[in-house]
C-alpha cells in the first residue's frame, strides 16, 4: 500500500515532529536564562534629572552585581535582572506612557516616578495593568487607598520635616522659618506640608507663600523680600538639584546668614557651582554614613563609582527599591507574575538589611501616615554640605 502520496504525507508529518522537537529543546534551553525585568519611569533630563539619574544608576549597578554572581534565585528558578528605563521628563503624560510601555513589555515592578506629577496619573494604569510601583513622591492619596499598588520609596518631607525642624530648634536655636518653593505641584505641596510641620513644633512661620517659576535663574528679586523678614531658617521646599546652587548663591549674596535647608535629595557635584555659598546647606541624603555603611554598601559605592565616574550620595537610598522587589519575590515566588501576591507578602515581609551595619531590617512601614504599610523602610540621614561633599548631621527616625 505504500505509494508516493502516502510517503510524502508521512515525510511531512515527520518533518513537523522534528521541528517541534527542536523547538521544545530550544524552550528547555531558554529556561536556564530567565529574565526578571524591573522598570524605572522617572525624570532623567531637565533640572530635576539628578533624581532619576541616581535611580537608574543605582539599579543598573546593583543588577550588574547580581548578574555577575550568576543571577537571582527565586523559587526553583534563577533570573538575570534587567533594568528597563523610561524618561518621563517630569511630564505627567509621559509618565502614563511609560507605565503603559512597561505593562506592554510584561514589566510588573516599576521604580519611580520621582514626582507627584508623574506618580499620581500612573496610579490608574498600575491598578488596571497589574503593576506595583515605588514612587519618590509624597502625595498621600497614592498610599492610603485599599489595595494601593504604590509604595513610597523614600522619606516624605512631612516625615522628615518635623524631625529636622525639631533638631534645628534644639541644636541651632531656630525660632523663625520662611519657605520658598517653585510654582509647581510638588514643591507647593511640600511647602504646605513644611509650613504645617513647622507650626506643629512651635516655630514661627514668617513667610510661607513666596514662589518662583521653574526655569528661573535670577533669584535675587524673589529672595530679597523673604530675607528681609529675618528668618533663622530658610527652607527651599521641593527644590530641584539644578536650582539649589542658584538659590543658595542669591541668598548669601543678599547677606542672609541663617540656615538653609530642604527635604529633597541634592547633588554634591552640582552644589559646587555655588562655591562657599553652599556650605552649611542641609538636605536629606543617603546612608553612606560611616556609622551605618555595611561592607555591601561600601562595595555598592565602589562599583557605582567605577561604572559612572561619580557617586551620587542619594543613591544609597535609591538602591533600596530594587532590593525590596527582589526580596519579596524570593519570599513569595508567585509574586513574579502576580502583584496581588506581592501586596500580600509585603504585609509581613522582613529581611536583614544588607546595606546597614547593625539591626535595621528591611520591612514595609507607613501605617502611622497611610493607615497601611505602603512604604519601604529606608534610613533617614540628614546631611550638611561642606566644601564639596556631604557630612552627616544626624541620623533620624520617622516618628
Amino acid at each position, binding site marked *: 500500500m505504500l505509494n508516493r502520496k502516502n510517503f510524502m504525507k508521512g515525510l511531512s508529518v515527520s518533518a513537523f515532529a522534528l521541528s517541534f522537537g527542536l523547538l521544545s529543546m530550544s524552550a528547555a534551553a531558554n529556561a536556564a536564562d530567565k529574565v526578571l525585568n524591573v522598570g524605572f519611569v522617572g525624570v*532623567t*533630563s*531637565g*533640572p530635576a*534629572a*539628578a533624581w532619576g*539619574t541616581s535611580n537608574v544608576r543605582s539599579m543598573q549597578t546593583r543588577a550588574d552585581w547580581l548578574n555577575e554572581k550568576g543571577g537571582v534565585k527565586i523559587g526553583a528558578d534563577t533570573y538575570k535582572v534587567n533594568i528597563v528605563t523610561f524618561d518621563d521628563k517630569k511630564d505627567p503624560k509621559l509618565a502614563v506612557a511609560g507605565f503603559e510601555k512597561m505593562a506592554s513589555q510584561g514589566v510588573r515592578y516599576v521604580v519611580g516616578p520621582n514626582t507627584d506629577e508623574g506618580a499620581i496619573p500612573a496610579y490608574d494604569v498600575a491598578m488596571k495593568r497589574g503593576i506595583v510601583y515605588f514612587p519618590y513622591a509624597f502625595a498621600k492619596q497614592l498610599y492610603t487607598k485599599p489595595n494601593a499598588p504604590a509604595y513610597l520609596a523614600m522619606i516624605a518631607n512631612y516625615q522628615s520635616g518635623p524631625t529636622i525642624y525639631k533638631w534645628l530648634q534644639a541644636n541651632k536655636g531656630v525660632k523663625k522659618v520662611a519657605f520658598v518653593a517653585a*510654582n509647581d505641584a510638588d514643591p507647593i505641596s511640600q511647602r504646605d506640608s513644611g509650613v504645617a510641620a513647622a507650626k506643629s513644633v512651635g516655630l514661627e512661620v514668617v*513667610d510661607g*507663600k*513666596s*514662589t518662583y*517659576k521653574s*526655569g528661573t*535663574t*535670577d533669584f*535675587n*528679586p*524673589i529672595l*530679597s*523680600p*523673604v530675607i528681609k523678614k529675618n528668618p533663622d531658617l530658610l527652607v527651599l521646599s521641593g527644590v530641584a*538639584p*539644578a*536650582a539649589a*546652587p*542658584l538659590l543658595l*548663591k542669591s541668598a548669601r*549674596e*543678599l*547677606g542672609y546668614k541663617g540656615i538653609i535647608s530642604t527635604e529633597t535629595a541634592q*547633588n554634591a*557635584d*552640582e552644589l*559646587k*557651582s*555655588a*562655591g*562657599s*555659598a*553652599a556650605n552649611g546647606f542641609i538636605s536629606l541624603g543617603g546612608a553612606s554614613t560611616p556609622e551605618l555603611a555595611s561592607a555591601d554598601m561600601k562595595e555598592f559605592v565602589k562599583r557605582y563609582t567605577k561604572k559612572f565616574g561619580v557617586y551620587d550620595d542619594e543613591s544609597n537610598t535609591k538602591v533600596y527599591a530594587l532590593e525590596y522587589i527582589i526580596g519579596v519575590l524570593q519570599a513569595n515566588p508567585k509574586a513574579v507574575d502576580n502583584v496581588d501576591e506581592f501586596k500580600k507578602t509585603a504585609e509581613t515581609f522582613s529581611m536583614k538589611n544588607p546595606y546597614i551595619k547593625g539591626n535595621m531590617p528591611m520591612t514595609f512601614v507607613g501605617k502611622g501616615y497611610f493607615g497601611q504599610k505602603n512604604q519601604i523602610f529606608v534610613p533617614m540621614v540628614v546631611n550638611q554640605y561642606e566644601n564639596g561633599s556631604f557630612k552627616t548631621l544626624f541620623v533620624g527616625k520617622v516618628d
Partner: protein
Amino acid sequence: MEIVVNGVYLGAQYALIALGLTLIFGLMNVLNFAHGQMFVLGGFVTYGVTERLFSGLHFPLAIAFFLGVIAAALVLMVVGGLFERLFFRTVINRSARDESTMLLAAGTAFLLDSVILILFGQQQKGMPDGQKLIDGVFSWGSVLIAYDRILVAGISFIMIVGFILYMQWSRTGRAMRALAQDKMAARLMGVNVDFYTMLGFAFGAALAGIVGGLLFSVTGINSGLGDPTSIKAFTMVMLGGAGVVSGAIMGGFILGMLESVLLSLLPLIGLGDLTHFIIFASLMVFLAIRPQGLMGKPWG
C-alpha cells in the same frame, strides 16, 4: 529703588538677547526658535573655556572668563553662519511657504538641545568653585546689588550701544539695514544679499552666545534653560515690534522692569504666584490692541 536696579539689570540682559532674535527676523523673516538654545550653548562654551584656562592652565579668572566669552561669540557665530548657509538658505530657496522655516527653526532647537546634552550633560555648571568675577556687594540704603551684576549690566549696555553704532555707521550695518528694508532693492543696488544674510544670522547667534556667557558668570548655566529663554526673547520682540532694533531694546527693558516690579511687590499682597500670569495676560491684551508692537510697522 532696589526694584528699579534689578529691573535695569534684567532689562539689559533681555535687550541683548532680544537684539539677536530681532536681527535674524528683520533680515530673513525667520523666527529663530533655537535662540534660547544658542544662549545656553554660549554659556557652556564660556564654562568650558573658563574652566580649562583657569583650573587647567592657571590663567587669572577674569582673563579666562573673558576669553571664554569671546570663544562663545566665535563658536556661535560659526554655528549661526553654518545654520543659515546649510539649512535656512536651502529651505528658503526651495520652499514657497514661509512656515517651512518655522519647522526648520524648531528642528534646530531640538538639535541644539540634544547636542548640548551630549556634550555637557545635565548638571548645573557655575564659575570654578563658585567664584565671582568681582567679590562683594554694592550697598546703598536698602539697595543691594553684587558688583559682578553691575559689571555684567555695564558690559551689556556697552554692547547695546556698540551694536547700534555698528548697525548705523558701518558698511556691514548699512548693508543689513538695506536688506531688512527691501531685499530686492538691496540686491539691485549691488549688496551681496546671500553673504550679508549669513553674516546677520551669525551676528544674531553670537549675541545670544555672548549673553549666555555673561550671565553664566552670575547665574551659571544648565541645559534646561533653552526654552524659557526663547519664550522670554519672543515676548520682548513681540512687545517691542518684530524686526525693529529699538523695539527689541525697549521690549527687553520693559520685560525686565515688569518682572522685577511684580516679583517684588506681588508677594507682599499674597499674589506671588501670579507674576508671570499677569505679564503674559497683559501682553495678550496689548497685542490684541496693537498687534505690531510698540515700534513695529502696521504692515508687518
